[in-house]
């Protein structure tokens, strides 16, 4: 047990060290969500107007972009595993007397902390975009983002356990990341789309993460929220869905990662 905890914190510590050492990564990982926010916001803002009383397109999209930045920085846990394998450092980690599950948890926690840092940067922008920010919002946001990030980094590590090359991993992630984002209700309310799109979106677990974050910012709203079988999901229910799935993904990652020699 001691070996697992030591593994967890030492691996997480290194992930953060690298994040801080690589300033370019901080900039580039922020660029993508910001680009969406600025371009989509400016492009569609006027056309779409208000989606619900007092909620214009930017206010609607902003929580979704927060979730998106959580997704990209969490999946980086997987990038980091493939990276370490390619540059040999994974061997140094694997031969150390630290538990395999500790390594996976450490990578996940490292990615989660970087996700929280990214969200913090996004929050600084909130007042500029006219999104209201209260201490209560932040207090609710931290646990929700943490749970979402842990689960998504589990997904990243799970995929990385089967990948040997950076290129292969990037390809899989690209194929995965766009449908996940576009079908998660980041850019449109999932209740108001053609039937087939609605079904796919509601099967996408990220949808519940996006909506939980949105509800924290905008409050519960029947026309914007996610309705499953006639029931509008509450934040708690959505967090439960994300948490359950995250546990499965993280557990799967531990098993897959421990299997390698």
């Amino acid at each position, binding site marked *: 047990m001691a*070996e697992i905890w*030591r*593994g967890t*914190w*030492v691996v997480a*510590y*290194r992930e953060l*060290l*690298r994040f801080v*050492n*690589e300033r370019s990564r901080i900039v580039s990982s922020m660029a993508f969500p910001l680009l969406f926010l600025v371009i989509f916001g400016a492009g569609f803002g006027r056309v779409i107007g208000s989606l619900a009383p007092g909620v214009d397109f930017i206010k609607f999209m902003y929580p979704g972009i927060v979730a998106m930045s959580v997704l990209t920085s969490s999946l980086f846990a997987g990038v980091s595993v493939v990276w*370490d394998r390619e*540059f*040999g*450092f*994974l*061997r*140094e*980690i*694997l*031969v*150390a*007397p*630290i538990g395999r599950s500790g390594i996976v948890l450490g990578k996940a926690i490292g990615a989660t902390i970087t996700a929280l840092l990214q969200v913090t940067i996004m929050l600084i922008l909130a007042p500029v975009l006219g999104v209201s920010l209260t201490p209560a919002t932040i207090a609710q946001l931290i646990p929700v983002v943490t749970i979402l990030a842990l689960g998504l980094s589990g997904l990243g590590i799970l995929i990385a356990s089967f990948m040997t090359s950076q290129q292969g991993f990037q390809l899989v992630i690209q194929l995965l990341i766009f449908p996940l984002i576009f079908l998660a209700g980041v850019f449109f309310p999932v209740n108001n789309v053609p039937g087939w799109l609605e079904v796919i979106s509601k099967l996408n677990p990220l949808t519940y993460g996006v909506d939980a974050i949105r509800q924290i910012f905008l409050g519960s709203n029947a026309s914007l929220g996610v309705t499953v079988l006639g029931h509008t999901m509450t934040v708690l229910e959505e967090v439960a869905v994300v948490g359950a799935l995250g546990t499965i993904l993280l557990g799967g990652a531990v098993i897959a990662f421990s299997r390698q*020699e």
Partner: protein
Amino acid sequence: MTGPTAATVVEARELRRDFGRIEAVKGVSFEIGAGEVFGFLGPNGAGKTTTINMLCTLLRPTAGSATVNGFDVRRQRSEVRRSIGLVFQQPTLDEYLSAEQNLRFHAYAYDVPRDVREPRIRELLTMVELWDRRAGSVRTFSGGMKRRLEIARGLLHHPRVLFLDEPTLGLDPQTRRHIWDYLLRLREAENLTIFLTTQYLDEAEYCGRIAIIDRGEIVALDTPDGLKRSVGGDLITFTTADPAKAVADVKERYGVEPTIRDGTIRFHVAAGDTFLPEFVRTFPDPIQSVSLHRPSLEDVFLTLTGHTIRDSELDARQMLLQGAGRWRMGR
């Protein structure tokens, strides 16, 4: 320079590993005593890395057993790992961290106590002459510097054995010699046992004992001098004014059968370095010139296996290519 003493640090008994139908290591046995520098010499594909990986618990043996520092490599993997230092063939540093950060990660992972950690990092970095570069990103280091850093890292948690898999592969001769200066100095300072694999014959000369491994089997195990003696000893060549008389004199005095080539008389003796002064002083005929040739480990390898290290490397590559061809056709 002697065989295993009272304290045996590594013991392998009939250690064997198959990969599918390929027998990579066909049951090797040896013992390494405390403080020894023990080398595994052989070409690529001979089973060196497979053996080192089994001893370091990175690979489970198919059969046989081994202990390292008294711990069983099958059942006490964690204990084995804590008690050994490892330097891999391929670099395993985090290039985006500094030298110091790499060492600190290792110290945390191996649970080196806080009060020991910083002085130990300083001591080792000073010994491998990287203390001035401690804050530098490893990315900017040369191949030799990276190797030195990895050796320092391998010793950080006070292991009693250091395993080095091809420690100087791909480095230029001068850098290789430097690495060995550091290694021997560290061995002295740390009272270390060193196990290394190599395909460089000159590198094997640094070892107290060498196991020559070829196609998964140990074909000889002795000190470098012992190995050289085993192939017929040193070659003495000399010239005199009257070769025919000299041949008869050699035959009579030393009981060996000399040969003459281009007017030069040649014969083998066991220990040429002590024989030569005696020979020059007491030989009845006036000697015009004399020379001593000690057999190299290359000669030893050639005698024992019937091929040179480079040849067998080509063989191994050919086998791989053929294997790959078959595999592709099989699909």
